[in-house]
């Protein structure tokens, strides 16, 4: 085979905890075969070596939360052929999007000794609100098998096998007993995007939605079912308001329960 240039992969970090990048490092067995096929050109978490763009595949972690990042993401887009966002921060704004529900200035004055040094945006927003994104991989953190699948699919020029249906389908395929029906444990599985393999229900816990909303989430009826299990309005606000708080269906649903609390 003629010696072809290996595709160049870059990993970019925005506002995030680095957990999703670590999932890539965590791919141990797969990482070496990956480096045979691909040049890891920019991966701050793993190496300081930086190769100049353009890049064939960019993995973007983190949300946009500062004016500087809002500029930088456009440079990343320009330097990338395919751009895939990874994790709840990059696809939904992350836990830091909790600021979107209140005035961020109030936070800053409580948290920082010298608020004047802080240059931040009012909202933490997903990457897709700023640039065109080719594929969004969800999860907080992402599932490493899904990451390998996305990268393999990219290398082979095919569609990734990442389905947007409910967690329940994964739960049932693995033969787990439904915690909602059999134990009365509230579970967000029916409105949550698959990808984790139904990890929590398999350990007898309810899903708490870390992969964000599924393709057609009926959060209204999900909440009604939780209320029948005795869950209070304030807890319904909390459950939708975590890593994917700013993902539209969860955002609106938590707002509904918030206004119910205020109504008394």
């Amino acid at each position, binding site marked *: 085979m003629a010696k072809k240039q290996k595709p160049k992969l870059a990993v970019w970090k925005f506002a995030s905890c680095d957990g999703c990048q670590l999932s890539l490092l965590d791919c141990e067995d797969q990482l070496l075969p990956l480096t045979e096929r691909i040049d890891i050109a920019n991966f701050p978490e793993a190496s300081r070596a930086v190769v100049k763009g353009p890049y064939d595949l960019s993995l973007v972690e983190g949300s946009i939360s500062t004016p500087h990042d809002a500029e930088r993401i456009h440079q990343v887009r320009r330097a990338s052929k395919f751009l895939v966002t990874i994790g709840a921060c990059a696809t939904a704004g992350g836990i830091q999007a909790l600021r979107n529900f209140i005035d961020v200035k109030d936070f800053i004055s409580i948290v920082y000794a010298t608020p004047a040094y802080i240059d931040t945006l009012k909202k933490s927003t997903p990457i897709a609100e700023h640039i065109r994104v080719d594929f969004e991989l969800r999860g907080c953190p992402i599932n490493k098998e899904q990451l390998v699948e996305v990268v393999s699919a990219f290398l082979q020029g095919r569609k990734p096998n990442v389905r947007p249906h409910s967690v329940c389908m994964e739960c049932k395929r693995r033969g787990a007993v439904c915690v909602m029906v059999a134990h009365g444990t509230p579970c967000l599985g029916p*409105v949550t995007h698959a990808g984790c393999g139904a990890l929590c229900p398999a350990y007898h816990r309810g899903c708490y939605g870390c992969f964000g909303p599924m393709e057609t989430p009926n959060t209204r009826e999900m909440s009604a079912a939780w209320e029948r299990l005795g869950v209070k309005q304030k807890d319904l606000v909390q459950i939708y308001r975590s890593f994917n708080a700013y993902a539209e269906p969860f955002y609106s649903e938590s707002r509904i329960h918030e206004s119910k609390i205020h109504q008394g």
Partner: protein
Amino acid sequence: MNFPLNRAMMAPRGSVTETALKVGTLRMLEGASLDRLFGALSKRGYRLLGPAVREGAIVFDEINSAADLPAGWTDEQEGGTYRLKKRSDDALFGYAVGPHSWKKFLHPPAERLWQADRKGKTFEVTEEKPDTQKTAFIGVRSCDLHAIAIQDKVFLNGYYVDPLYKARREHAFIVAVNCGQAGGTCFCVSMGAGPKAAAGFDLALTEVCEPERHYFVVEAGTDLGAEILAELPGREVEGREKAAAEDTVASAAQQMGRYMDTTNIKELLYQNYAHPRWDTVAARCLTCANCTMVCPTCFCTTVEDVTDLQGEHAERWQKWDSCFTKDFSYIHGGSIRATSKARYRQWMTHKLATWFDQFGTSGCVGCGRCITWCPVAIDITEEVRAIRQAPQSPKSSPVGDKYGNS
């Protein structure tokens, strides 16, 4: 409703040896001797699969002996709830069907169909070898026998036969159990699918728990079943025992938690494509697909091709899919069933109407699983009842495109 059971599947298995017993023979087996049956199956190389208590439910799993069965347990089922409860006796089969069905083994949730490896400029395909492990299913209820017969039609009777399903089916030995107690969501009587096992089994047990005695009335359904039955330490059934077994099944038939009127059901659904009830149920449905995952007759799958990072190896996997997902009806340009209304209607109309045109039977056997395991308690029997009623409010009658997307 009439289910033509696929007895032909049963015929070639087992050698027709000179057994003293004939198909149809009834024998009495003491409760304590059930392990002799399991022993006889193990000796013939069968892996035993049967009910076991796990995660607060009765599931189907690998079992080794009668000690692994859910002795003294029962279940309480309603729309969207399932709870285990202790019984007042030590019955081994004193519960209805749980979250698992036998399709988990016969038509597994994920299976590899073939794999391919790069060989220089070409590649080599290796087909998946059919599984020839002999498997005994212990405790198959009548509704599930009907469900297996339905899946036989789907996978074996058409132009294309599924070789992996066929091998598993041919190596299965079925020990049916006649229900002595119906669950809160059962309606097999309405569907003509139970509670007594009529065909499609090798052996059928009826469990009788009396204050002083625990025994089984065992019926041989095939030659192989009769051959094994002849080896067990049973005896001829006495009239009293036979009557007790019949009473047990008759009482289950009286206890059905649900009822469905199936009169002209196919026409009913075909004529009520625009019934406002579809909007009502769609508003409640989570499109989570639990109903299709637990249904013992739902057979739909997707295929996923996976490749390794080096591009040297590829595999094709078949996985359970559901008509409740958007991808399921995706064709170029989008999903044909974009709304939950279109998806719920598709599912229920397939089960109760189009299935007749496609396979000559109902697609529902009345097992009640979709009612129990729906997180929001949507109930197929209630939906049929509602559709039978005249539309309440004609102005809410939906208009949509020809696929029902409104």
